[in-house]
């Protein structure tokens, strides 16, 4: 525990010293980044050590304001979530060193580092909280600090709007969590976690759903994901990387933690989670295909990956409910490993996107192109991130999807609805995989390959060393987990041992399968190098020339004629039309010699429209009617408070 606190202390020192030295811009950045990385490294080492040593849980408790106790406990599952928190935060801090380079904004940058440190600390505390009060406090601290990080570019209206939406969602979500906590408290009578398993089954379901809504809005489960595509593009890229890579996983952590604490036995929990996973997974990637802004697209991919994680957890829960150990073990291990994997490749992709936006000044996919030649390292690491996120071997995304598949396949022996949900999970995973590959061939193909579609894309150059290095580190991790998955899978499984069903389960199935995958991947590389060599031999002494792309007879091609991301994704988006609203505006060609024409398309988010029509507008209407209550008269406001207390005293 001491090492953990030392790590947090170092991180907070980094944050606070930035506030003190904001006038010396470079010194502030060096100090903040070093301290944060140092603290994170310490914390990550500690967490990894705990996982590898199977260390017994440690706890810490501090009584506070007489009634409350501030309790922390690091068990396997906390340690598992602490690893991405510290690793990604450290790597993103390194990235921020060159990314934040506006010396005129000394104070703004200092505040950014302060809240960045606070966000890391609060995420670590969420993962270790050992009673309801501590969890709630850490959760709120996390929401508030991330809010201030989002509104870094506060001068822009779009950023302020995004911050506002984020704040609304995060607070509404917190309300649901607190409602769930209050409900739990009413059954157990204390703030501790220990008694939660003994409450009645119906109460478990209600509490779980309330917490699921709250945590789900943080995690970005569809239809509660609306803040993601606003907040991520608005935030600085290193913040997007941390928020999308790690912070939304805290929502997943909340779901997993309370599932474990409640120890439910009904299969309904798994079925709810699988259904939500299917919706988030498939629609998340379809919306991503329809988006033109690279960071907005990545934000929707977070929704998709949360869907995959939920599918894994749901399979695990279904396995637990039906007593199917293989299904439970592989489902949970797959879901948890995907948490780690997604944090790696998603932050890698956000950093790549940040580099592209900084070097070209545009986030619009359809205006970029040909960046692989101008930004070779960013391009290559982005390619690796893209293959990983599409769940393709030989990278890490495949490993976690494989585990989930394996678990779901072993659920096919079940009867009735459990069988159907296993089939649903398999179909969803296959569809998500195909669509994700479609989406990322679009991003890589349109942004990095082909010819530049604009002047600013043609003039781009590689980002600085400290922006490229973090991407290379993450790309190496993605490949490493893809080739040698055994230990990572083992660790993910150890973390899911908290489930009573799996406490004594020996994962004899994991190791041989992981060795086999590892061998298959190595065989792939051997064949790949062999064929590459063979190809080289065939080209020895041959004439190799270069020329323009074959234009199918057309001799005056321009870069504007290339397929754009919009046209690339059009048929897929069209296919999902009942769930997705596409607005197209174009001027019809009505003359023999057409003049200048325009075309624009916009993919609307159905959940946003739905929430607007069915929730926001009625509420606004109602509140408008109640406007007279707000009159600015202080005495009457105090009267309200007194009245409220009296009414509560009467009823409780």
């Amino acid at each position, binding site marked *: 525990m001491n090492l953990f606190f030392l790590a947090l202390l170092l991180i907070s020192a980094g944050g606070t010293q930035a506030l003190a030295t904001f006038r010396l811009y470079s010194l502030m950045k060096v100090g903040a980044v070093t301290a944060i990385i140092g603290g994170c490294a310490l914390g990550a080492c500690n967490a990894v050590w705990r996982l590898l040593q199977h260390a017994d849980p440690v706890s810490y408790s501090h009584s506070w304001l007489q009634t409350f106790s501030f309790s922390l406990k690091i068990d396997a599952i906390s340690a598992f979530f602490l690893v991405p928190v510290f690793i990604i935060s450290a790597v993103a801090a390194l990235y921020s060193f060159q990314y934040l380079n506006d010396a005129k904004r000394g104070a703004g940058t200092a505040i950014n580092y302060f809240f960045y440190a606070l966000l890391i600390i609060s995420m670590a505390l969420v993962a270790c909280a050992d009673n309801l009060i501590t969890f709630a406090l850490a959760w709120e601290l996390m929401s508030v600090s991330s809010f201030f990080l989002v509104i870094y570019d506060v001068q822009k209206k779009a950023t302020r709007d995004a911050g506002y939406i984020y704040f609304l969602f995060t607070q509404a979500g917190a309300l649901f969590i607190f409602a769930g906590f209050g409900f739990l408290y009413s059954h157990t009578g204390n703030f501790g976690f220990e008694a939660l398993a003994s409450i009645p089954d119906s109460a478990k379901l209600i509490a779980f759903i309330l917490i699921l809504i709250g945590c789900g809005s943080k995690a970005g489960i569809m239809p509660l994901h609306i803040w993601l595509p606003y907040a991520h593009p608005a935030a600085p890229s290193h913040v997007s990387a941390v928020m999308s890579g790690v912070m939304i996983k805290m929502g997943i952590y909340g779901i997993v933690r309370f599932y474990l604490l409640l120890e439910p036995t009904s299969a309904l929990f798994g079925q709810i989670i699988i259904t939500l996973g299917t919706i988030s997974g498939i629609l998340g990637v379809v919306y991503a295909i329809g988006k033109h802004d690279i960071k907005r697209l990545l934000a929707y991919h977070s929704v998709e990956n949360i869907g995959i994680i939920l599918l894994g957890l749901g399979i695990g829960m279904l396995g637990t409910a039906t007593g199917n150990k293989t299904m439970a073990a592989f489902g949970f291990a797959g879901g948890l490993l995907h948490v780690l994997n997604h944090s790696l490749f998603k932050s890698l992709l956000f950093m790549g996107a940040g580099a592209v936006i900084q070097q070209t000044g545009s986030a619009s996919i359809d205006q970029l192109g040909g960046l692989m030649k101008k930004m070779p390292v960013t391009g290559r690491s982005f390619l690796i991130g893209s293959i990983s996120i599409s769940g393709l071997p030989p990278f890490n995304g495949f490993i976690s999807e494989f585990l989930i598949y394996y678990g779901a396949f072993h659920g096919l022996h079940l009867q009735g609805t459990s069988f159907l949900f*296993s089939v649903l999970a398999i179909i969803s995973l296959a569809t998500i995989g195909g669509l994700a590959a479609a989406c990322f061939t679009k991003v890589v193909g349109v942004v990095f390959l082909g010819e530049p579609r604009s002047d600013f894309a043609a003039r781009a150059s590689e980002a600085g060393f400290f922006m490229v290095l973090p991407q290379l580190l993450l790309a190496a991790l993605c490949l490493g987990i893809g080739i040698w998955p055994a230990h990572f899978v083992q660790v993910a499984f150890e973390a899911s041992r908290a489930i009573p069903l799996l406490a004594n389960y020996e994962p004899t199935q994991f190791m041989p399968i992981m060795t086999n995958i590892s061998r298959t991947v190595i065989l792939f590389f051997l064949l790949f190098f062999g064929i590459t060599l063979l190809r080289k031999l065939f080209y020895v002494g041959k004439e190799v020339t270069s020329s323009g792309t074959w234009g*199918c007879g057309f001799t005056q091609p321009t870069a504007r004629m290339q397929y754009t991301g919009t046209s690339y994704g059009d048929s897929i988006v069209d296919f999902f039309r009942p769930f997705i609203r596409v607005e197209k505006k174009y001027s019809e060609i009505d003359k023999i010699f057409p003049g200048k024409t325009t075309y624009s398309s916009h993919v609307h988010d159905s959940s946003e429209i739905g929430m607007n029509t069915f929730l926001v507008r009625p509420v606004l209407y109602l509140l408008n009617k109640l406007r007279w209550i707000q009159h600015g008269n202080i005495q009457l406001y105090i009267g309200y408070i007194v009245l409220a207390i009296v009414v509560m005293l009467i009823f409780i």
Partner: protein
Amino acid sequence: MDFTFSFTSFLSLLTAVSLAPLFMGVILKVKAFFGGKQGPPWLIKYYTLIKLLRKGSVYSTSTTFIFKLGPIISFVTAFMLLLFFPFAGLPPVLSFHGDVIILFYLLGLGRFFTVLAALDTASPFEGMGAAREVFFSTLAEATIFVILALFFRLSGSLSFAEYFTGDQIVNLWSQSAALILLVLIALFIVLLTENSRVPVDDPATHLELTMIHEVMILDHSGPDLALIEMGAFCKMLFYSAFISSLLYPFHTGSGLYNGLIFSIIMTLIYAVVGLVESITARYKMDMVPNFILTSFALVFFATILTMEFVQ
């Protein structure tokens, strides 16, 4: 991982791969027959490969290293599939429980790079082909995974070796023949889709605008193109072998006799592909998703049926 050092396994693999171009010739011969023509020689595809391997290449100035990676990866991934496939009831060279998942995902990796190589050329036509390829193959992939789910439900197997050489064989002569019949139709639709055959795609069409796969490889030439062709042969061989293993119980007979039957069934499957190409026209592009979804509906229906049949 089970690694079979058996001579026959290697031999069957090598024979199958070396015969793959010949089988492609069958399609051309059947089409020629229906067109009232004599058609190209049986060995035409071998001549093409040799011709391509002897040539140099022209690379577009727009392309990057991805353009050269595309052919290599698409060939390697398609070839790896064959390493795990039991030809004519013989044990495959490699196999493990769960190999089907990684193999179909490796095919996905091959497609990923083929598509990227197409987009690398900056050609609008190749972009168009790429967009169609990823869309249609996503639909086909859903069918494949439902088939795998059905097979697991029937036999508890998760590898090609277990399907066709294990304890619980899945084929048309087992208990669940009715379901396998639906799978066969679906699998044939997937074969047509994944190998860009009529009515999904027409490899012989003359207009780039209407192509899917052929337009994606327009700019490849020389040995690169030979690799792509070889990869395409392997993929076609795999799907046909998959169907023929479902059609005939190879686990009962003995080596040479099985090999003969296998070759005959394979020739028939290629002939049916040629037949379909001769008597149907390709669908309009917006009809293709419906065609592929038919295969999905069939196997999904079969899977639902198991809820009653398999207890």
